[in-house]
């Protein structure tokens, strides 16, 4: 265990001393997107978060408060844990949008992911300050929104049992990661950085695999919750159907 830690640390130093790109990041840094894209996504994200605060303020019950805190902490901790994915020295990590959507709905998800992104941006210098709106848009609005639509549509189309919910949460998780990466690719294309035919396959390829990881963690977390605190799941589900 100790040796492993040492080896990992060495890798990190090696990568850091390789070039200019010193700070380890997983979110969009400043300098990549153009002003128009930054402003556009920032405006949408600000509106979205304002709406989310309003909706959550109306709907939130006492029981959801610790859930939101712990879920945010879980997402932060899990996002740090990059796992190597099959090809060419690329890693992937958890996003958490779908897990959050299944447990608390899309609005609470947007608030939680925004908080996580704010802490990552200002304390950990992960994700640019100017690009914060774009990062919130990609993960909170596109990722969370996609997960919500897929999960809810699936619940309407298929028989409502544990197996369906498991499959749906896996699908929602995969799509949230892949669509967030597609949104990010489109922003890069709109900013005239690299052409679509270059960035989209690269982003789609890696995130299609990362999405499988996302699905697995989402399903595992939900299963664990169902086994230990099924009342929380039921609570959220009744809360969500209330919403419609």
């Amino acid at each position, binding site marked *: 265990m100790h040796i492993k*830690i040492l080896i990992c*640390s060495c*890798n990190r130093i090696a990568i*850091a001393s390789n070039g*200019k*790109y010193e*700070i*380890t*990041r*997983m*979110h*969009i840094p*400043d*300098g*990549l997107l153009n002003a128009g894209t930054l402003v556009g996504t920032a405006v949408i994200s600000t509106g979205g978060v304002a709406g989310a*605060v309003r909706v959550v*303020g*109306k709907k*939130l*019950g*006492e029981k*959801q*408060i610790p859930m*939101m*805190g*712990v879920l*945010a*902490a*879980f*997402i*932060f*901790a*899990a996002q*740090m*844990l*990059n796992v190597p994915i099959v090809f*060419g*020295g*690329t*890693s992937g*990590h958890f996003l958490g949008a779908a897990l959050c959507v299944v447990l608390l709905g899309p609005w609470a998800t947007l*608030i939680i992911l925004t*908080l*996580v992104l704010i*802490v990552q941006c200002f*304390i*950990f*210098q992960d994700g*640019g*300050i100017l690009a914060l709106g774009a990062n919130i848009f990609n993960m909170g609005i596109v990722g969370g929104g996609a997960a919500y639509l897929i999960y809810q549509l699936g619940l309407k189309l298929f028989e409502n049992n544990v197996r369906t919910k498991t499959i749906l949460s896996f699908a929602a998780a995969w799509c949230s990661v892949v669509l967030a*990466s597609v949104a990010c690719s489109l922003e*890069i294309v709109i900013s005239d*950085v*690299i052409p679509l035919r270059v*960035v989209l396959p690269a*982003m789609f390829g890696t995130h299609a695999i*990362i999405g499988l990881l996302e699905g697995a963690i989402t399903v595992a977390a939900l299963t664990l919750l169902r086994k230990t*605190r099924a009342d929380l799941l039921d*609570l959220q589900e009744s809360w969500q159907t*209330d919403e419609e």
Partner: protein
Amino acid sequence: MKNKKWWLVAFAFCLLLATFAPLASAAPDGLERVVEDHNLTERIIEPPFVLIADYLFPGIQNEAVAGVLAGWIGTILVFALAFTLVWLIARKNNTKTPSDTARINNG
């Protein structure tokens, strides 16, 4: 209270996850990979200030210790922020429309 204990265990689990941060892969993630592969690193603007860059607590020689410390700080900070913010939102709401919250809480 049984529920309270469960939440504490859940939060402890988050801290445990953060403890494994030094074991995380240092390979670039999906977006970083694209940035590196297409020589976009020069475009990146470094942040105006740096607090805990690289998920390593500054000033600590041992990277494993620095990583664990950074992970714990972040996890506790995110929890505290989320809990406080949501509590504030909910409290404001509870004082405004107590009947609404009661209805929601009852299912």
